[in-house]
């Protein structure tokens, strides 16, 4: 049926207070929102509106009525007021007047919900700025939500990234309840909550994976592929709760099982998943790393490593051999004498000039050739620059510093990122601007460059106000030619 009322008419109506009444007359679009429309569904249009104190989420039907029985709609709306899990909804009939292309007015009902932060935005906001306590809160809240759904026999049926929302403290609020489909399996809700928990946990654990997960997979295959990648990475990195929840979602486990999985995940520490990003990006095959059970190192490895029975043995570096057996990494000398490590490591890098980066369930660390932790495994990220004898590392607050090979902090001021150490200088970023630090920790330039690259042969390429040129180690331009 041809729609008589174009989308622009709704936008006009929302922007014209004369066409709005009731609560709607006090709300307005935010100037930065553009046309303000968030989503256009087959039967509804959604957008965010604002009053002086809060955000509202508006849903209005493109047809004359919402595609649900009015009685059910209204009873659901009432229910949202008594269930703290659900976003409070206001149903206001005929409060919006829109004009069709012939100029005829049409009244529209609106549903207004208090505007909480949907999952995707919540992930982007809180995982990226290392607000892990809020993420932790959100995980616990998701578990509570799963329990409540079971306990109160609530079936939502339309839980997804848009309708699973969070307040500023990370408390779950389920939106869109009044318009949720009637026939729905309760397990679907628990799957959605579990998926939300999984995404939040992974996003907080591994920022690099976030970019692959912070948008919906629009087809079932991609959704499944992502889950399998997460499952593989979780197994590889010995993250049992994460592996279990991914497995449960994939196998459509019961609501009870899913609720338990959410609970365990909400208690599990965040841990990097270095394998995940290459899997999600398609650089590694997940079939390489699927294991049925996690294998501990055999006892004889405590005495002597038999390289012939290792899954991977790398060429020696610094006289030390890195090897992998099943999902365990280790180091040993030529004769198989193992280097005793203080921690169980999930991933290992080669030794260079007496140091190697390792990843444990807790985080990144730096070990010396005796296996001792020179920098404890509490870092979100850590890079060893052996040519410069320094480490660039990110702490759990998201702050980057440089450290000497003994783990002593060199830089006084932190940055949002540090790296590309070469010829005695390190590139640093704060916000979207770059600068250079010397490896003694002194900042050599201000954060002024739009782009900045490592020094080579005494020169570094930078971009400043759109112009690319080379600077020397004193920060002066050496070459003004455009690159």
């Amino acid at each position, binding site marked *: 049926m041809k729609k008589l009322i174009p989308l622009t008419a709704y936008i006009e109506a929302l922007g014209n207070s004369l066409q709005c009444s009731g609560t709607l007359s006090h709300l307005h679009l935010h100037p930065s929102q553009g046309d303000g429309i968030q989503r256009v569904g087959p039967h509804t249009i959604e957008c965010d509106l604002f009053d002086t104190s809060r955000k509202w989420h508006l849903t209005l039907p493109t047809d004359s009525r919402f595609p649900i029985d009015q009685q059910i709609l209204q009873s659901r709306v009432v229910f949202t007021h008594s269930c703290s899990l659900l976003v409070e909804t206001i149903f206001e009939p005929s409060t919006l007047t829109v004009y069709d292309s012939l100029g005829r007015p049409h009244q529209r009902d609106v549903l207004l919900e208090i505007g909480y932060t949907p999952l995707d935005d919540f992930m982007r906001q809180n995982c990226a700025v290392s607000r892990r306590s809020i993420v932790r809160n959100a995980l616990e809240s998701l578990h509570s939500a799963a329990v409540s759904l079971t306990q109160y026999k609530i079936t939502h049926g339309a839980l997804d990234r848009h309708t699973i929302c969070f307040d500023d403290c990370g408390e779950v609020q389920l939106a869109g309840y009044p318009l949720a489909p009637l026939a729905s399996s309760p397990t679907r809700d628990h799957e959605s909550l579990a998926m939300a928990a999984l995404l939040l946990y992974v996003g907080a654990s591994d920022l690099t994976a976030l970019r692959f997960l912070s948008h919906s997979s629009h087809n079932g295959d991609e959704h499944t592929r992502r889950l399998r990648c997460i499952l593989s990475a979780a197994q590889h990195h010995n993250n049992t709760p994460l592996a279990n929840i991914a497995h449960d979602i994939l196998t459509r486990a019961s609501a009870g099982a899913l609720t338990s999985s959410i609970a365990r995940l909400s208690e599990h520490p965040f841990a990097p998943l270095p394998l995940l990003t290459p899997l999600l990006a398609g650089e590694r095959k997940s079939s390489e790393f699927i294991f049925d059970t996690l294998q501990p190192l055999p006892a004889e490895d405590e005495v002597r490593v038999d390289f012939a029975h290792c899954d991977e043995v790398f060429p020696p570096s610094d006289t030390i051999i890195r090897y992998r057996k099943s999902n365990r990494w280790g180091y040993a000398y030529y004769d198989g004498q193992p280097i005793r490590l203080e921690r169980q490591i999930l991933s290992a890098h080669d030794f260079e000039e007496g140091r190697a980066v390792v990843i444990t369930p807790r985080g990144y660390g730096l070990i010396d050739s*005796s296996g001792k932790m020179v920098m404890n495994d509490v870092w979100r990220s850590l890079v060893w620059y052996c040519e410069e004898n320094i480490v660039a590392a990110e702490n759990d607050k998201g702050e980057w510093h440089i450290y000497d090979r003994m783990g002593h902090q060199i830089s006084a001021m932190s940055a949002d990122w540090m790296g590309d150490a070469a010829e005695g200088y390190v590139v640093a970023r704060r916000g979207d601007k770059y600068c250079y630090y010397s490896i003694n920790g002194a900042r050599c330039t201000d954060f002024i460059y739009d782009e900045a690259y490592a020094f080579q042969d005494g020169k570094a390429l930078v971009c400043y106000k759109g112009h690319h040129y080379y600077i020397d180690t004193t920060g002066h331009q050496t070459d003004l030619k455009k690159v």
Partner: protein
Amino acid sequence: MYNSQITRANKGAFILLLDRSGSMAEQTILNGNVMTKAQALADVVNSLLTELINRCRKERFIGDYFDVAIIGYSGDEADSLLGSGWQSIVDIDSMATDITRHRLERRLPDGTAYATIVDRRAWIKPYAKGRTPMAKALSSATRLASSWCRKHPLSFPPIVINISDGEATDSSHEQIAQLADKLKAISTSDGNVLLMNIHLSGQYENEECSLRFPSEREALSLGRHAKLLFNISSTLPELYNQEIEEFTGAKPPFRAICYNAPIDELVSLLAIGSLTMDRMI
């Protein structure tokens, strides 16, 4: 062979190859003081130079008995640390150097303690950065040894002492072996260049794994890197036997390699390596 006395007409020669890679920034303990391996190595080498000068000291002059070259290798380069190439002991003595003041303490058997301040000259400064271009260092040593032997055909051949704490990063083991063979093939009429390798231990490595001047049989138990160093090290002539026997308690023949040597032993090892000082007349 290896009989020449060291005279002013037939001088002796040393080439020291010093690892200055990043791993030399590891901490160690020398004479009870905590410092980096690079600092300890610099201190020991400076002591050796002082000792050479002192041993050449006559009533009114320093006898020109030795030529010394010191190559430091790190990053991608192997650079001369004493001017360029060879320096005579007389020139080394007249170089302007840093003077460091050291507080010395001595406690007599009765417990009385005394302290004094002494000045020590420092030709070599500590440095530790970058990788380990040992191949470059061996190539430099070959050039230096070759030019020296042409000028001093009758002298005791040069002694090359390579001090490192890790593997070469600029070449394979095979290439290192080839370079070492080329170096050891250089000779005077008194014998071939002697190559001694001293591998310094890490802070925590098991001392039981240390080997000093091992025999062929002991070498069987060595790891790949240690075996390489063993194979490229010279078999020491008889004149070293007594000193090494006293040091190790073992019997000759001895290979000129010490593996996983604690830094505290470096002084003694260099004293053995520079034994030709005792052949001065």
